[in-house]
């Protein structure tokens, strides 16, 4: 028996004992384990499962053990994920701290910062949000104006962030702030701010989908201790870029599967609405539209796989993240447009009688999908990046 085999056996046993039964069922959105000070656990098993996993550092399996991570090798993590998949375990912790901030801290933070913040993230104690965009700095992120003035032992922060995800439910925010107004990219710093501090206020933004996953966050004379600066002063743009790449690939992943799946697949929806002849969609032009879309989707999926294979082989596809962000979100938007066409009036409900939950969810997801090509860098910005970085087309 290899070391990996015994790791698998041990893991399997541990999971059997430590993963509550209710955590092996599909997860409703309200039971998502975001953690944090304000966390509510409608199902207490959620907290148990999070704590159990965190105790082994397995909420962040590959982070170093010294900071509370699992310290697993790639192979071990693969085994862990397979075993989690085998029992259909829910994620133990979903968090921007895990996905975004943690990796940045591991790369750029001081030893003290890593010690303090990584453990809180791993244990789900602190819920983080991201303070990047501003009303006047969307696509032009580096045009941000939120100012952090050096006041000796602290920075005095003033400004307004926007599109901060769930800021009203978060504990801390990682922010890009301007520490030098005389230059653009080189005057930006990366700052961690406790949202309990005086002067921080988050107001939810109502979206066209009816949901409010984002906030405007106002920072008024907020005093931030100097030790909350990550990396060097005025070098925050380097960290920001790294995080953005990560965000782009997260969002482009949205291009796969969701939406039609809940309705039994695009083909099923088409057959239900336009009839079937044998196993075929009865209306051949609808059939071609479905096939056309499925081809695009499969082609995109294959491209994601190819990028993975090339990355493994040490080859880069070049600005892959921008391409995936652009193409993935555009395919996703087209998918929902097609789905709406197929579902007809049943995709036009907002709430109440006449529509079932899945149908209402499609309508909201269709609206939500429109944001995919805007958030995390618009499609236009991605095309600019491809043109410049990959194709080498000159600036005007």
């Amino acid at each position, binding site marked *: 028996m290899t070391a990996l085999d015994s790791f698998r056996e041990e893991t399997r046993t541990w999971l059997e004992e430590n993963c509550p039964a209710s955590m092996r069922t599909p997860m409703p959105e309200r039971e998502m384990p975001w953690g944090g000070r304000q966390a509510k656990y409608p199902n207490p098993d959620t907290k148990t499962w999070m704590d159990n996993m965190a105790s082994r550092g397995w909420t962040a399996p590959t982070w170093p053990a010294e900071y509370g991570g699992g310290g697993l090798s790639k192979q071990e993590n693969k085994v862990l994920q397979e075993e989690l998949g085998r029992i259909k375990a829910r994620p133990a912790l979903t968090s921007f701290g895990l996905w975004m901030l943690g990796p940045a801290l591991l790369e750029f933070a001081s030893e003290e910062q890593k010690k303090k913040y990584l453990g809180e993230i791993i244990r789900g104690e602190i819920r983080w949000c991201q303070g990047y965009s501003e009303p006047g700095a969307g*696509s032009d992120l580096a045009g941000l104006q939120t100012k952090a003035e050096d006041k000796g032992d602290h920075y005095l922060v003033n400004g307004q962030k926007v599109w901060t995800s769930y800021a009203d439910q978060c504990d801390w925010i990682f922010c890009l702030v301007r520490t030098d107004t005389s230059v653009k990219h080189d005057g930006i710093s990366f700052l961690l701010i406790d949202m309990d501090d005086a002067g921080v206020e988050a107001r939810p933004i109502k979206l066209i989908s009816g949901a409010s996953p984002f906030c405007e966050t106002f920072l008024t004379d907020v005093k931030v201790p100097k030790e909350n600066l990550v990396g060097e002063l005025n070098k925050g743009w380097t960290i920001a870029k790294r995080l953005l790449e990560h965000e782009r690939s997260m969002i482009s992943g949205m291009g796969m599967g969701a939406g039609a799946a809940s309705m039994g697949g695009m083909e099923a929806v088409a057959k239900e609405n336009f009839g079937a002849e044998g196993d075929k969609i009865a209306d051949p032009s609808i059939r071609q539209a479905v096939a056309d879309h499925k081809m695009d989707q499969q082609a995109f999926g294959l491209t994601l796989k190819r990028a993975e294979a090339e990355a493994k082989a040490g080859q880069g596809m070049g600005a892959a993240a921008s391409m995936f962000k652009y193409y993935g979100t555009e395919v996703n938007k087209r998918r929902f447009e097609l789905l709406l066409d197929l579902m007809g009036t049943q995709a036009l*409900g907002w709430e109440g009688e006449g529509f079932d939950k899945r149908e209402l969810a499609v309508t909201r997801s269709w609206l939500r999908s429109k944001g995919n090509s805007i958030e995390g860098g618009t499609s236009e910005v991605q095309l600019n990046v491809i043109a410049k970085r990959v194709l080498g087309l000159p600036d005007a």
Partner: protein
Amino acid sequence: MAFVLTEEQTMLRDMAKDFFTEQVPVANLRKLRDEESADGYDKDVWKQIVELGFAGILIPEEYGGTGFGPMGLGIVMKEAGRTLAASPLYSTAVLGAGLIMAAGSDEQKSALLPKIASGETLTALALEETNHHNPLNTAMAAEKSGDGFTLNGDKKFVIDGHIADTLIVVARTSGAAGDAQGLSMFLVDAKAEGVSVTRNHMVDSRNAASVSFANVSVRAEALLGSLGGANAELESSLDLARVCLAAEMLGGAETVFDTTLDYLKERKQFGVIIGTFQALKHRAAELFCEVEICQSVLLDALSALEERRNDTPRAASLAKARVGDALRLITNEGVQMHGGIGMTDAVDMGLFMKRARVQAQMLGDTNFHRTRYADLGGY
């Protein structure tokens, strides 16, 4: 073909534009939505619409209307579309008046048209039974009983169904779903026994309802048009409504385009007005062409109705399909070009996009009308 508005029509347009812009701006729809209005429209606004003569715009003067004809109606609907004005105009002034004028007996006309023109009676067309518009697929049964009929069945996507006084119900008196023959229309009191109406809350915050008919008895006089031969009368009125819908849709497309263009001229990123970016310029220019192409198609379809041309059905399908395609593109681009702010409920882009998708499904989507256009073209 009237591609240029007459002086009278221009005055009507200007009047309608001023009225909707000032009295029924998009804020009016927001208010109805946010205050969860039970009616889904503003009765004061409706009163003003009636006073302006818009409710009876299709109705001849002898029945109390203004007799402006389809062109006049289309002009008003387009201006209503520019501000997403919620009112019974479509269900009552377009569909109700249109159907009764096309199929009604003298008695029915005398009884109903003056009340429509005066705003007293609201109507709704109970037609759809499936997720996609297809009148011939009507299955709901109307059986002869005594000298009247008994109606049984379910209707959905009945625009303004829960505020209507009179329902115009399409049901089958013979034949099976798919047959052109055997369709009949009935005027049914919305409060009649056996009629139950459930309001549906739609994505566009406008009115629609599901209506069930359980052994609803109507008298012989309730029959609107010929027994079993409603298809022709229905289709001609539906074509009128399709073109008026296209007008409303193009109005929406214009607002989205104008608003987006303004935003391109005002929003700064990277230190410059984003309207200076050539990629956005070209896309804006393409949207402009779409709007212009649609103006022509709409005016042609309204002229066809006005002049009772033989090719009216084809012109109507062209208008509904072509404007539908343009509106989809323009609303999608409107949101995208606004960026993040376009995704918020604070600006109007989302409201227009939601309305556009409902309009797309009303009386046949692009797929339906493209097929019909080919059918009518003989290929």
